[in-house]
């Protein structure tokens, strides 16, 4: 026991010594870390604390234990709709966006002028959020809306479709737009990763009997790209669960019968419209645990630490 304490304090002393030597490093890191902890890490814990309270900003928070979570999961009908919508949303736009960004990057990576095409596909993710009103116009419910117009001229439909008001159509429309915007940072990561797979590996594989593009991708390309695949996956998870802006612009907030109500929309509702901070904090904790959990899961699947 004494020996253990002695060696522990030795080790602590040497770590402290090393830290003192690297004082400059810590100084470099300090400004960022201070802001990061202050405005990102601490809020996470505050949020967790608040989720166990009743807090309406006018009075100090009142501890109510798991009551928020109980009402959230057992009584809140709209939350259930929101979760359903968000899951439907995330499980479609997430994978679709993810595979699309890999697929498009793969299609592009050997082409001439690939940067031009990359720009074309990347633009929606940059410009998209501001174009909510544009999509509203395109999917406008009368015959002046672009979508209705084209479809009517092609004879596919005979009457204008109420894209953004018809409860059954709202989700597909929003999903469509979200997929359009999904070729973002992940897409760029895939493109760059693809370009950096060493050429010799493909040649060696060809000699070893790999015959077509599909096998090539599976055996060579994908394994080499694991880090980028993970990066894109994490980003994709987070973004597909945070959908709100474009949907709200297009179909309104709240949406007809809450058809496009996502968890984030629910959060906004309770936080900044009803000012029930405790309840809203509970929602945000659920969101946090979900995206964080999924990201860690992907990290486990796609880890390339031992490569």
């Amino acid at each position, binding site marked *: 026991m004494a020996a253990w304490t002695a060696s522990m304090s030795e080790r602590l002393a040497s770590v402290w010594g090393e830290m003192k030597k690297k004082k400059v490093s810590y100084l470099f890191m300090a*400004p960022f870390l201070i802001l990061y902890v202050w*405005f990102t890490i601490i*809020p996470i814990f505050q*949020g967790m604390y608040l989720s166990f309270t009743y807090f309406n900003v006018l009075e100090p928070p009142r501890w109510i234990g798991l009551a928020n979570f109980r009402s959230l999961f057992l009584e809140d009908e709209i939350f259930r709709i929101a979760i359903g919508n968000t899951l439907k949303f995330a499980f479609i736009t997430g994978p679709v966006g993810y595979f699309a960004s890999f697929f498009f990057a793969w299609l592009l990576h050997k082409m001439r002028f690939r940067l031009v095409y990359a720009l074309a596909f990347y633009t929606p993710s940059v410009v998209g959020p501001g174009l909510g009103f544009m999509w509203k116009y395109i999917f406008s419910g009368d015959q002046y809306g672009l979508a209705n117009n084209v479809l009517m001229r092609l004879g596919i439909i005979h009457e204008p479709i109420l894209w953004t008001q018809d409860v059954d159509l709202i989700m597909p429309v929003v999903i469509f737009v979200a997929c359009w915007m999904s070729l973002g940072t992940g897409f760029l990561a895939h493109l760059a*990763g693809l370009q950096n797979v060493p050429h010799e590996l493909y040649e060696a594989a060809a000699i070893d009997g790999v015959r077509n593009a599909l096998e090539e991708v599976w055996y060579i390309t994908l394994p080499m790209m694991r880090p980028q695949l993970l990066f894109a996956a994490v980003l994709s998870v987070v973004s597909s669960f945070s959908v709100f802006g474009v949907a709200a612009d297009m179909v309104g907030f709240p949406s007809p019968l809450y058809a496009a109500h996502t968890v984030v929309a629910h959060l906004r509702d309770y936080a900044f419209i009803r000012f029930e901070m405790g309840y809203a904090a509970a929602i945000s904790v659920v969101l946090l645990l979900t995206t964080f959990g999924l990201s860690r899961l992907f990290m486990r699947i796609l880890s390339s630490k031992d490569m």
Partner: protein
Amino acid sequence: MARVRFAGSNRFTFRELLFMLFMTALAVFFLLPVVYMIVTAFKPMEELFLFPPRFWVYRPTLKNFSNLLVATSQGSVPFVRYLFNSIFVTSVVVTGSVILGSMCAYPLAKHNVPGGGLIFALILSGLMFSSEVTQIPRYLMVTRLGWMDTYWALIVPGIASPLGLFLMKQFLEQVPTAILEQARVDGANEWQIFWKIVMPMAKAAWSTQLIFAIFSVWNDTWAPLVFTRSEAMKTLPLAIQTLGGSGIARVGAMAAATFILSMPPLIVFLFLQKRVLETMAHSGIKG
């Protein structure tokens, strides 16, 4: 970087041409809404509500843009103010973000700092949830600090961006340490090494940080929504969103405003895209 070309020749093979046509069609399809927005921004009144709607403008005009200046001045805040707010906030956040992020990434990548692994893991976990999750506490914090409706609220919380730091650190790890060692032997201190050697070498990475920071701050509607109360402090995207509420009748002005909103990030990206791709090559998470 491995550059692979079709057939290694300079002539287009037929297959290549076909493929390119297909990709071009796809690209055009992707860009349609954007093109439509740009075109609408320049349409005169007579062409705006044409039936069937057109993808081209016959007599382009700048009237929508001038209408924009007039329309919003009725709300007692000139349009230019929104633009200024956006530009100011974006510039400060982006500058701060790039500098602080790079400064923090440098020791994490190049000095073997005790606890560095832990710190990096902490930052990495910041990538795994969306900012929505910290909305409420940030709002409360800002109120308590008395920063509500000031530039502080719009600027300070956004500076410490985990994405920027992550990209920078990954990139810096590829930088050969030998050069830095040489400089240390020659008597340079870390500060000098950082600014005179590291940053110039990492141009691709901080250009990328720059771009991503610009994208996220410029288009952000949440921060101004929650942190501002007065019209005069609103930024451009929020102002447009509120304008949009007034219905279809102002399509021209809306398109013009959206045009102004979307062009700057795109232009910046155009200039820096090569650097971006170079940085993204190192963007993998090793797990």
